[in-house]
């Protein structure tokens, strides 16, 4: 599956970053660039992971970087609909409590 990222910004200023494909050492720099763009001047970011079939540590590291970047401006940073496989990697990293997660197994606190 080809890797792709799109950004949709709503009237509230919240951006939805929709990720499609596999997030690894090759593709995570592009995701980070998109997260930085989406966070610039906005109310926050929701990263839609429904289309992500695979994520590795560099992808998780990118999400951590996004969270930290959002924290600097007190912007919202949430993950949406991670697949069971992606959720499994987040659980392996013991970071599910760190992120606000919408859908696919229910919300968690952020």
């Amino acid at each position, binding site marked *: 599956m080809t890797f792709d990222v799109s950004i949709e910004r709503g009237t509230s200023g919240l951006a939805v970053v929709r990720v499609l494909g*596999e997030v*690894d*050492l*090759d593709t995570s720099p592009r995701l980070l660039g998109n997260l930085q763009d989406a966070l610039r001047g906005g109310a926050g970011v929701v990263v839609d992971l429904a289309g992500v079939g*695979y994520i*590795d*540590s*560099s992808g*998780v*590291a*990118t999400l*951590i*970087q996004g969270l930290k970047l959002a924290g600097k401006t007190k912007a919202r940073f949430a993950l949406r609909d991670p697949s069971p*496989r992606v959720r*499994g*990697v987040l659980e*392996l*990293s*013991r*970071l599910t409590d*760190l992120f606000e997660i919408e859908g696919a197994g229910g919300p968690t606190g952020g």
Partner: protein
Amino acid sequence: MPSRAYLAEVPADASCLRAVRAFAAAVLAKEQIDESERLVLALDEACANIVKHRCPTIEDGRICVRLELTDATLRFRIGGFCKPGDVPKVKPRDFADIRPGGLGTAFIGEIMDRVAFEPDPERGGAMELVMERARRSEDDV
């Protein structure tokens, strides 16, 4: 059943990690190995470390993956790893330490039963990731 081995070789480039994952996923499916998604992740993380830290003496810059299976063990042998002196740099971080680096090595340690490095000054050494299949089966009972 006798031991079986499968080989793959790709350029040590991030764009080729997907090919390594596809190779491992296909073999693990063929061999009906449980935990295949976690094993693919461990292999991918090891190969990603090679891309990031690969030995500069390897002229062709390739990653060689050998997947060996016996009834007792599953072993990934990954050639083209970093110089022995670089091994201490490739270390896991504590999961409680929330920062981006070191996560991949921590994943490998969580998923595999044994991780070993076999130095080779000429070829940059090999990394071995081992899962004890017999022990895992006993755990399932």
